């Protein structure tokens, strides 16, 4: 069963890993609805 399809998705990206908007682009292609995307910064 698909994990993301028809789900509300919260994206927590990382400035030094993968930023939120890049993840959101991918999630959309899997049928997930991105309700919130943010990018954290530890430095």
């Amino acid at each position, binding site marked *: 069963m698909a*994990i993301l*399809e028809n789900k509300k998705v*919260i994206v927590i990206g990382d400035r030094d890993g993968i930023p939120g908007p890049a*993840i959101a*682009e*991918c999630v959309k292609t*899997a*049928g997930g609805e991105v309700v919130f995307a943010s990018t*954290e910064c530890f430095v």
Partner: protein
Amino acid sequence: MDLENQKRVKEFADEYGPENLVVVLGAAEGEAAGLAAETVTAGDPTFAGPLTGVQLGLQVYHVCEPEMKEEFDEAVYDEQISMMEMVLDVDDIISEMTAIREQYCKF
């Protein structure tokens, strides 16, 4: 996890129901990914944010995990993320994430 982000996660869980939510992370390290995953499943381990003591048990994945990659459009993943597989320690991230999901994920 950032306190504001914790607040938003909590609000969305209330609004949509925790079973309808999936959290996707982009952390740079296995440990950081594990901590964020723990925060949205078992509660904030640093006891600082709104998720302290809140066991949402949400489904949570790192964007580089095979379960996620499988669902994404390949071309989009290649353009947006793929290069980072050469940079991140994906095996470490997978093992941290799997451990947290097995222990705390409710869905």
